[in-house]
């Protein structure tokens, strides 16, 4: 198997050396997004501010997973594994949420 991997990696005429992303630039972008989320924390409307802050957090997570964890280059099976785990968490959340809201109300904060 190792020999097969080597041959796939070196002797294939279509093989091109992958271009590494500029990791320092990605790190700077992440720091800028951190600053943006801190500024968004000053928005008086908690619902709007909170939504935007978690939106920025989602972008940061996507950047880390794509460029640092190289998720883009992983086989679809591994991506499906992580998506399945995430779906289980979302099912837990949205399965229980109506009961929590129905019984206790929603603070909206």
């Amino acid at each position, binding site marked *: *198997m190792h020999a*097969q*991997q*080597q041959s*796939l*990696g*070196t002797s294939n005429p*279509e*093989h*091109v050396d*992958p*271009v*590494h992303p500029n*990791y*320092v630039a*990605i*790190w700077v972008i*992440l*720091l800028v997004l*951190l600053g943006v*989320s801190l500024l*968004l*924390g000053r928005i008086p409307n*908690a619902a709007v*501010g*909170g939504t935007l*802050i*978690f939106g*920025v*957090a989602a972008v*940061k*997570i996507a950047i*880390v*997973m794509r460029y*640092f*964890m*190289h998720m883009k*280059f*992983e*086989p*679809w*099976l*591994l991506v499906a*594994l*992580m998506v*399945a*785990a*995430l779906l*289980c*968490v*979302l099912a*837990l*959340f949205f399965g*229980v*949420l109506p009961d*929590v*809201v129905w019984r*206790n109300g*929603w*603070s909206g904060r």
Partner: protein
Amino acid sequence: MSSLTHLHPLSASVSRSPRRIPVIPATRLGMWIFLASEVGTFGGLIATYVMMRMWHHEWLHESAHTLLSIGTINTVVLLTSSLTMVLAHEAAEAKERARTRRFLLLTAGLGLLFLCLKAFEYSHEIAGGHTPKVSVFWSFYFAMTGLHALHIVGGLVLMLYATLGLRHDCVLRRVAPIGLYWHFVDVVWIILFPLMYVTTH
């Protein structure tokens, strides 16, 4: 054939057989399975916290006592450690042992700095009377950040292990799964930071 050009940017270790069955190194596959289970662990805690937050209106006032400045510095520290970790991974793939060791030690140092700042934060909060017994918010706070800190400790042990055994090629290859683990710990903190610090001030 075109799929062969979409190899991992740092290695050719994920390749495809002629029948397009992914060939994944066991250590990397094992790490991804572990991380999927971690999504359940942290995801369950975070989902429960968010639901409880909707219920407990008074948490808004309690959570205002968390230290935003320390949380922000710790976020910068972890993001920087992710950068040094990916650079260690890059060096390991190029079989540059000295550079790999340097970046791994730098990452471990940043992880240690994170723990020191966290310890300072904990001591400040406990001294202010904010202990896990006081309220459910502080129970969640210490449980979630404490579990995250334990993962940092685990990462430090893995990095120390990798640094000590770098002269062996097999250990050099293990830098990739250790990197995955470290970046995941970073991802968890990216969620915990707004949840515990930013939306509360």
